[in-house]
């Protein structure tokens, strides 16, 4: 299958009983199961009215890059990047109220990417990651304490030089 639901979500879900069509920004109409949606218990800042999303990835690209597609507005879609593709040292310290928002579980952290042309100018936001609790299908964006860049180069510097 060309387009897939992110595996970390998919494996939690019995697929098939609540299938629905979803119009997406980048992939046209796809079929999802309502159980595969993620609810933002804390908002994507500036997009407070949009709470339901699906996490999609393309096998031909990588599962480290996620299309965060709104199920409420076909035109609303973000690109998320696995932090480990950027840095081995990114260890976000989440706010104290995280558990009250996302519940207990093993969280996953994703970075919001701003894709620009030329590609080299694309950035990721290290200051405000999207954190997911796959078990409960909850997510939230958090603004971390400390001096973290909102625009960090998407390309690793060492890769640029070769």
């Amino acid at each position, binding site marked *: 299958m060309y387009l897939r639901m992110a595996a970390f979500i998919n494996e939690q879900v019995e697929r098939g009983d609540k299938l629905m069509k979803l119009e997406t920004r980048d992939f046209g109409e796809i079929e999802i199961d309502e159980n595969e949606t993620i609810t933002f218990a804390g908002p994507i800042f500036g997009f407070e009215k949009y709470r339901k999303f699906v996490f999609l990835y393309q096998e031909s690209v990588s599962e480290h890059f996620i299309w965060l597609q709104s199920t409420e507005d076909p035109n609303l879609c973000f690109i998320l990047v696995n932090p480990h593709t950027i840095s081995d040292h990114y260890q976000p310290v989440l706010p104290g109220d995280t558990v009250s928002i996302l519940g207990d579980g093993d969280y996953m952290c994703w970075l919001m*990417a701003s894709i620009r042309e030329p590609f080299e100018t694309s950035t990721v936001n290290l200051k405000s990651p999207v954190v997911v609790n796959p078990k409960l299908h909850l997510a939230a964006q958090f603004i971390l304490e400390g001096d973290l860049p909102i*625009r960090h180069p998407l390309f690793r510097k060492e890769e640029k030089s070769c």
Partner: protein
Amino acid sequence: MLILSRKEGESLILDGGIEIKITEISGNLVRIGITAPSDVKVYRKELYATIQENQTASHGVSADTVKNLLLQMK
């Protein structure tokens, strides 16, 4: 940047209608009270910057463009 010194309880007035008051200083934390007309939006800077960056992030280039970029990164 204009830099002014203020003590606890003292204020600044911006543009005749906005008051910024230092209500408490304690250790490395300053509490600030803001009185402004209701149409003046007040944000913590990091929140404002995050909202701006989320706006940028939502302006997608085409899926093929994104895909090409991501393939380059692999």
